[in-house]
């Protein structure tokens, strides 16, 4: 159970709609992931950290799927279920 209340989509400022739409498209889902809601609680965090994340995960020297796999390894080492 989360230790904070995660806001519903309509509770976020309208300015975040493009960010949320981009997140849904990025993951191919029709809802906002909990982590995105956490990062958007303070939009300056989502703008800056979110840009870092997308900049990092696009195809580069490594493909996105390789980077997602590396992210899973990091999560496993950090013993994180999310």
């Amino acid at each position, binding site marked *: 159970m*989360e230790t904070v209340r995660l806001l519903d989509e309509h509770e976020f400022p309208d300015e975040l709609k493009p960010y949320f739409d981009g997140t849904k498209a990025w*993951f191919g*889902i029709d809802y906002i992931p909990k982590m995105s809601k*956490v990062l958007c609680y303070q939009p300056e965090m989502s703008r800056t950290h979110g840009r870092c994340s997308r900049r990092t995960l696009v195809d*580069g020297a490594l493909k996105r799927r390789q980077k997602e*796999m590396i992210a899973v390894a*990091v*999560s496993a080492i950090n013993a994180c279920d999310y």
Partner: protein
Amino acid sequence: MAHTAAGKLQGYADDAYWYEAAYVYGVTNGINAVADGLRLPLDFSDSGVRRPLVKLLEFEEASDRVKEIYTDIMAFYVTEQVPSIFRALAHDDGYLTDYWKAVRFVFQDSHLDRLTKEAVALAASMAAKSDYGVDLHLREARRLGLTEKGLMEVVQVVQLFSCYTKIADGLQLEPDFTHLLQVSG
């Protein structure tokens, strides 16, 4: 869990990729725990003041069986020195024999290529703050073709997801990508 789902959507749909990756970061973590715990010297960069807490069995003093394994290890890593983790394990030649076979199997080209596996192992080592693992897997990844651009991409993923995992754990976020993780096969 979110990134297993994302990875499946991006082309690693078959579970075989995820089994292999899990073997890689699992074996890597096992090696790193022992190597750093025993303060084994780094193999490819300056160890500083690290002094091993166990004797490392050198090639010249090894049995013929161990020499055979050492030769295979050096060929696999393309090095003239057996990495210290295997010299530390060589006191039990039966254990070394099977453990090396497992390591070799896990890191060989398969569904995932060897470079991808080394990138995963490097990231796992950085996340675990393992000096030994970073030294070994950075050398291997570079030897297998990881560019400096690719290295920075690995570094960025490690940094970002070491951040996300702590936030998720601190706020006890429950996974919300589970339904995307269809079992293949």
